[in-house]
C-alpha cells in the first residue's frame, strides 16, 4: 500500500475540525485562554458557552511551521529568558510580534484566563503573567501534586471539588450563563466518552502491525486536548476508533514494513515530526509514548457526579499511580503500567528525550532510560530535543546518535 494511502481518513476530519476551531475562536465570545493539561475548566467552559483557546496548542502549531524560533527570539529580547518553557516564549513572542500573517489566523485577545495547577508551576506563572498582560480576570483551580501515596486521600478530592465549585461560580458571573446540572452532566459525559475512545484506540495499537504511528497520534491528540467536553470531539474519536479497528482487522500497518516497535518518551519536537519518516524507513514504528498514553485520558472516571469526575480528572495528572509525571512513569516501569505496556505493545527499543522546556516529562528520564536498558534489556537512545525551540536542536548530533541506535537495532 502506498504511504499516502496509509493516512487515516478520519484525520482529515480532525484537520477540518482544527481549522474550524481556529476560526471559532475569532467569532465566539466570551473567550478564555486556558491550559490544555487535563483541565476540567475547559469542560466547564463548554457548559457555560465560553469558547476556549489554548496558547500551548498554538505553540505546537507555530513550532510545526518553524515560527517558534522567531517568536522565542522576540520574547527573549523582551526579558522572557531562554531558560523559560518554549511554549511560554512562543506565546509572548507571538503577542509582541503582532504578526498579521500568523499561522491559522492567530489567536484573538481573551476575555478571561483560566488555569489549573496540575501540570507544572510554570504554566501557573505563565497564565498569571497573561492575566497581568491583558488585565483580565483569572480563574485558578489548585490541584496539588500528590507526592506520597498511591491512593488519593479524600481531603484532596474534597479540596479540588470545592476549588471547582468556586471556579464555576466565578465563570458563571463572567459569562452570565448558568452551569445547570444537566449541562455539567453533558460535558462530563463527553469528557468520559472521549477518554473511552482514546483509551480504546491506544488499546487497538497493541496490534501488530500497529495501525497508528506517532504522527497520527500527535494529530489525533488535538481532540481530547482542545475539544474536551464536546460532542464533536466524541464523534471525531469514535470515527477514528472505528477506522482503526477496521485497519486492525485487515492488518494494515501505519508504516510499510514494521520490524521494530519503539517507545517514545517525552513531548516530541514539533518542528521535526518528519523524523518519524526516517524511523519508518528503518522499519520502526512508535505505537505509544508517555506523552500520548499517560497524560490525557488515562483512566475511565465515573461521571455520575460531574464535579467529582472533574476533580479526579484534574488530580490524575499528578503522582499517585496514574500520574503523568516522568517520576511516576519511572516507578511504573518496575511493576505497573509501563512494564505492562512494554510487554503488551511488544516494545523493542526506546527513544528518550531530555526536553529543556519540560521538567514534568524530563525529571527522571535518565533513570527511566537506565531501567529500560537494564530491566528489559532494550536499546535506548537519549536525545536532547526541546519541544518547540528549534535553536536547541542539532540535526548533526541527533543523526550521530540515531545512526548508533539503528545499528543496535540491526538497521544500520
Amino acid at each position, binding site marked *: 500500500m502506498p504511504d499516502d494511502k496509509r493516512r487515516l481518513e478520519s484525520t482529515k476530519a480532525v484537520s477540518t475540525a482544527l481549522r474550524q476551531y481556529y476560526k471559532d475562536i475569532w467569532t465566539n465570545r466570551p473567550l478564555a485562554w486556558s491550559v490544555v493539561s487535563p483541565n476540567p475548566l475547559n469542560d466547564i467552559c463548554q457548559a457555560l458557552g465560553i469558547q476556549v483557546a489554548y496558547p500551548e496548542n498554538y505553540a505546537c502549531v507555530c513550532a510545526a511551521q518553524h515560527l517558534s524560533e522567531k517568536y522565542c527570539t522576540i520574547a527573549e529580547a523582551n526579558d522572557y*529568558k531562554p531558560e*523559560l518553557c518554549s511554549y511560554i516564549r512562543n506565546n509572548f513572542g507571538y503577542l509582541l510580534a503582532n504578526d498579521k500573517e500568523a499561522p491559522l489566523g492567530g489567536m484573538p485577545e481573551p476575555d478571561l484566563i483560566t488555569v489549573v495547577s496540575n501540570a507544572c*508551576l510554570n504554566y501557573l506563572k505563565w497564565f*498569571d503573567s497573561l492575566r497581568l498582560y491583558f488585565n483580565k480576570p483569572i480563574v485558578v483551580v489548585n490541584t496539588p501534586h500528590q507526592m506520597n501515596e498511591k491512593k488519593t486521600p479524600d481531603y484532596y478530592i474534597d479540596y479540588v471539588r470545592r476549588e471547582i465549585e468556586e471556579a464555576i461560580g466565578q465563570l458563571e458571573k463572567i459569562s452570565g450563563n448558568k452551569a445547570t446540572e444537566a449541562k455539567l452532566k453533558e460535558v462530563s459525559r463527553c469528557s468520559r466518552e472521549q477518554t473511552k475512545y482514546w483509551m480504546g484506540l491506544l488499546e487497538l495499537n497493541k496490534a501488530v502491525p500497529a495501525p497508528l504511528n506517532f504522527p497520527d497520534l500527535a494529530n489525533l491528540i488535538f481532540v481530547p486536548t482542545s475539544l474536551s467536553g464536546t460532542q464533536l470531539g466524541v464523534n471525531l474519536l469514535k470515527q477514528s476508533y472505528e477506522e482503526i479497528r477496521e485497519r486492525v482487522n485487515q492488518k494494515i500497518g501505519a508504516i510499510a514494513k514494521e520490524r521494530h516497535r519503539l517507545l517514545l518518551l517525552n513531548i516530541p519536537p514539533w518542528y521535526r515530526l518528519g523524523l518519524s519518516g526516517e524511523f519508518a524507513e528503518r522499519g520502526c514504528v512508535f505505537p505509544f509514548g508517555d506523552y500520548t498514553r499517560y497524560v490525557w485520558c488515562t483512566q475511565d472516571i465515573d461521571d455520575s457526579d460531574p464535579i467529582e469526575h472533574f476533580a479526579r480528572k484534574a488530580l490524575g495528572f499528578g503522582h499517585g499511580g496514574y500520574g503523568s509525571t516522568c*517520576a511516576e512513569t519511572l*516507578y511504573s516501569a518496575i511493576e505497573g503500567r509501563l512494564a505492562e505496556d512494554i510487554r503488551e505493545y511488544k516494545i523493542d527499543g526506546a527513544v528518550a528525550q531530555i526536553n529543556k522546556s519540560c521538567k*514534568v516529562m524530563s*525529571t*527522571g528520564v*535518565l533513570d527511566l532510560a537506565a531501567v529500560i536498558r537494564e530491566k528489559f534489556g532494550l536499546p535506548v537512545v537519549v536525545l536532547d530535543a526541546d519541544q518547540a525551540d528549534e535553536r536547541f536542536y542539532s540535526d548533526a548530533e541527533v543523526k550521530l546518535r540515531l545512526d548508533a541506535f539503528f545499528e543496535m537495532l540491526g538497521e544500520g
Partner: protein
Amino acid sequence: MSGIEQITRIARDIEGYLKAVRKKSGKRMIGVMHPVVPQEIIYAAGLHPIRLFPLIREPITLAQSHLHTYTSSIFRAIWDQTLKGVYSFLDGVVLPESCETVTFFARGWQWHRPGDFVTAIAGSRFKKTENAIDFFAKEIRSLSLAMDEFSGTKTSNGKFQEAVQVFNRNRELLRMVYELRKNDIPPLSGSETFDLCMASFVMDKEENNRLLDQIIGELNARKKGTKPKARLMVSGPCLVDRSFFEAVESSGAMIVADDTNTGSRSFWHTVVENGEPFASLARSYSTVPCPFTTSAEDRLRYISNMAKDFKVDGIIFSVEKWCESEKMDFPYLQKEIATRLGLPVTLVETEYLGDLAPIRTRVEGLVESISK
C-alpha cells in the same frame, strides 16, 4: 568569643557544626527544602530541622546521571552531596511541592535512596481562600503524623505550642537584626547578614535564639562604619554563596534588604500562638512570598514594601539560571518596579560555583548609575 564571631564560625563550617551537634544532642536531623515547610512540626516531634544547602564547594558529578543539567544547580549540588555522603548526619528529608526540580524529584529521591525517610507536603498555589488554608492545614497534619511515626512519639498540643513560640521568637529576632539595617549606616553588611541567616537556618532554634539575642546587643554597640555608596536589595531564590554578597559589596554598595528564600521570605511571617496549630501554621506559612506560592502581583507588593522600608536605591535580581518561576515574574516585576518605585533594576544569573566576574561588572554598572 563574640556572638557575631560564633555565628560566623558556624556559617563557615555548617557540616562540621551539624556533625558535632548531632553527636552531642543525639537528636535526629531532618532536612527541608525552601521556606514553605513548617519546621515547627519537625521540632515539636523532638527532631532537629535544618534547611538544605550545598555544604561544600565541589563540582557536581554523581548527580549528573540522575538530574539533567537543565534543572536547578543548587538542588543538583544538594543531591550530589547527598550521594557523596556529605549529609551523613541527616536522617530524612521533607520536600515540598515548590519549584519544578524539587517537586518532580521528590519521587526520584525515594527511588535512589529507598532507605531514606522522605516525605513531601503540598500547599496552595497563589490562592489564600479558606478552602486553600483548610487543605494546607490537612497537609501539615499529615506531615505531623509522618513525623510522629518516624520519631516514635505522639506530639502533644503543648509541644506544638512550644514549637510555635520558639520559632516565632526566632523569626522575631531575625527581623530585629534586619530592623538595624534600616539605619543610614547599617551596623552589619549583607555578607555578615548572609552568614547570620545561614547559621540560623541550621542551628538548634533555642541555641540560635540565645545567640541572636547576644548579637543584637553587640550590633547596637558596634562602632559606626562609613555610609554605603548605594543601598541595594537582592531578590532571588536560594542564594547560597557568600562570595556573591562579597562581590556585590566590593563595589562599595551594601545589601541592606532582600526578598530571597535564604533571607527575609523565611522569617517575615508570624504564627498565631495558642490557636489550633495546623490551621495557624497553614494561615501563616501560606503568606511566605516564594514565587511558587505567590502571584507576581503579590510579590511586587512584598518587594515594594521592603524597598521602601529599607530605603533601597536599586534592586539586583539574582536568579539561579534554571529557576523558571523567578524568571517568569521578572519581566513584570522589572517594569512595575521602574514605573511605580522609580528604582533601577538589574538581573544577574547565578549557578552553583558560577563565575562571579560578570556579576561584579553588572553590579558596578548599577552602583555607578545610582551614584550619578
